[in-house]
C-alpha cells in the first residue's frame, strides 16, 4: 500500500463524491461549493501526475475564477427572480440509465485497450518543457487563445450590459 495508491484513492473519493453532491444537491449554492471541492480534488490528481503547473492553473482559474463567476451569477439571478433558487431534478431514472450506459460503454472501451501500467520516468522539468513548447511550436494557438479570451470578455460585457 504505497503512498501513491492511497493518495490516488483518497483523491478519487473526494472528486467523485463531491461531483455526486454537485448533481444531487437541491440547493444551488451548495452545489457550487461542492463543485469547488471537486475541482480542488482534480488539482490534486494533476499533482499526482507530475503536472504541477496544471494543478496551479486548475486552482487559480477553475476553483478560483469559475466558482466566483458562478456564485455571482447565482446571486444576480436570485435577485432578479426574487426567490431562493432551488431545483428539483427531473427524469432521474432515465438520466441514471443513460449515464450508466455511457459509463459502461466507456469502461468497456478501456478494457479492450492496451494501456501502460507504469508511469515512465521523466528526467525533464515538465513546466519548463511546457513553457518552451508553448512559446515555440504552439505559439499560434496561444495567441489565438488570447484573442478568444478578448472576444469572450467583450461578449460577456455586451450581454450583461444594463438595459437602457
Amino acid at each position, binding site marked *: 500500500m504505497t503512498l501513491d495508491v492511497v493518495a490516488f484513492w483518497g483523491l478519487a473519493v473526494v472528486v467523485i463524491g463531491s461531483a455526486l453532491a454537485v*448533481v444531487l444537491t437541491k440547493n444551488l449554492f451548495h452545489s457550487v461549493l461542492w463543485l469547488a471541492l*471537486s475541482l480542488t480534488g482534480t488539482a490534486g490528481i494533476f499533482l499526482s501526475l507530475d503536472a504541477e503547473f496544471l494543478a496551479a492553473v486548475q486552482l487559480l482559474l477553475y476553483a478560483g475564477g469559475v466558482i466566483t463567476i458562478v456564485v455571482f451569477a447565482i446571486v*444576480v*439571478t436570485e435577485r432578479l427572480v426574487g426567490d431562493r433558487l432551488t431545483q428539483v431534478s427531473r427524469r432521474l431514472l432515465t438520466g441514471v440509465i443513460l449515464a450508466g450506459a455511457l459509463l459502461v460503454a466507456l*469502461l468497456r472501451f478501456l478494457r479492450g485497450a492496451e494501456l501502460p501500467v507504469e508511469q515512465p520516468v521523466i528526467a525533464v522539468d515538465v513546466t519548463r518543457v511546457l513553457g518552451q513548447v508553448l512559446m515555440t511550436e*504552439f505559439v499560434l494557438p496561444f495567441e489565438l487563445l488570447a484573442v478568444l479570451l478578448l472576444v469572450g470578455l467583450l461578449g460577456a460585457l455586451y450581454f450583461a450590459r444594463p438595459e437602457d
Partner: protein
Amino acid sequence: MPLSAYLTLAAVLFAVGFFGVVTRRNTVGILLGIELMLNAVNINLVAFARYNADIVGMLFTSFTIPITVAEVALGLAIVILMFRMKRTAVADHLDILKG
C-alpha cells in the same frame, strides 16, 4: 497506478457530469454538470500525457482550461440575459427552439 485507473476515474466523473446535465432543472445547474464533464476530459488528457511521456496532452489541457473559463463566463451572461427576458431560471421554460 495503472493508466486505466485514471481513465476510469475520468469516465466516472464524466458520467456523473452527464447525469447532472440531463437531470438538472436550473440552467446554472446544467452548467455545473458541464464543468464536471470538462474536468473529466482534462484528467484524461493529463493522464495520457504522463503515461505516454508526451507533453502535448498537458499542452492541450492548458488550452482547454482557459477556454472553459471563457465559455462559463459567456454561458452565465446568456443565463442572466434569459432571466431578464423570461423571468425564469427553469430550463424547461426555455423552449424557444421548440418545433
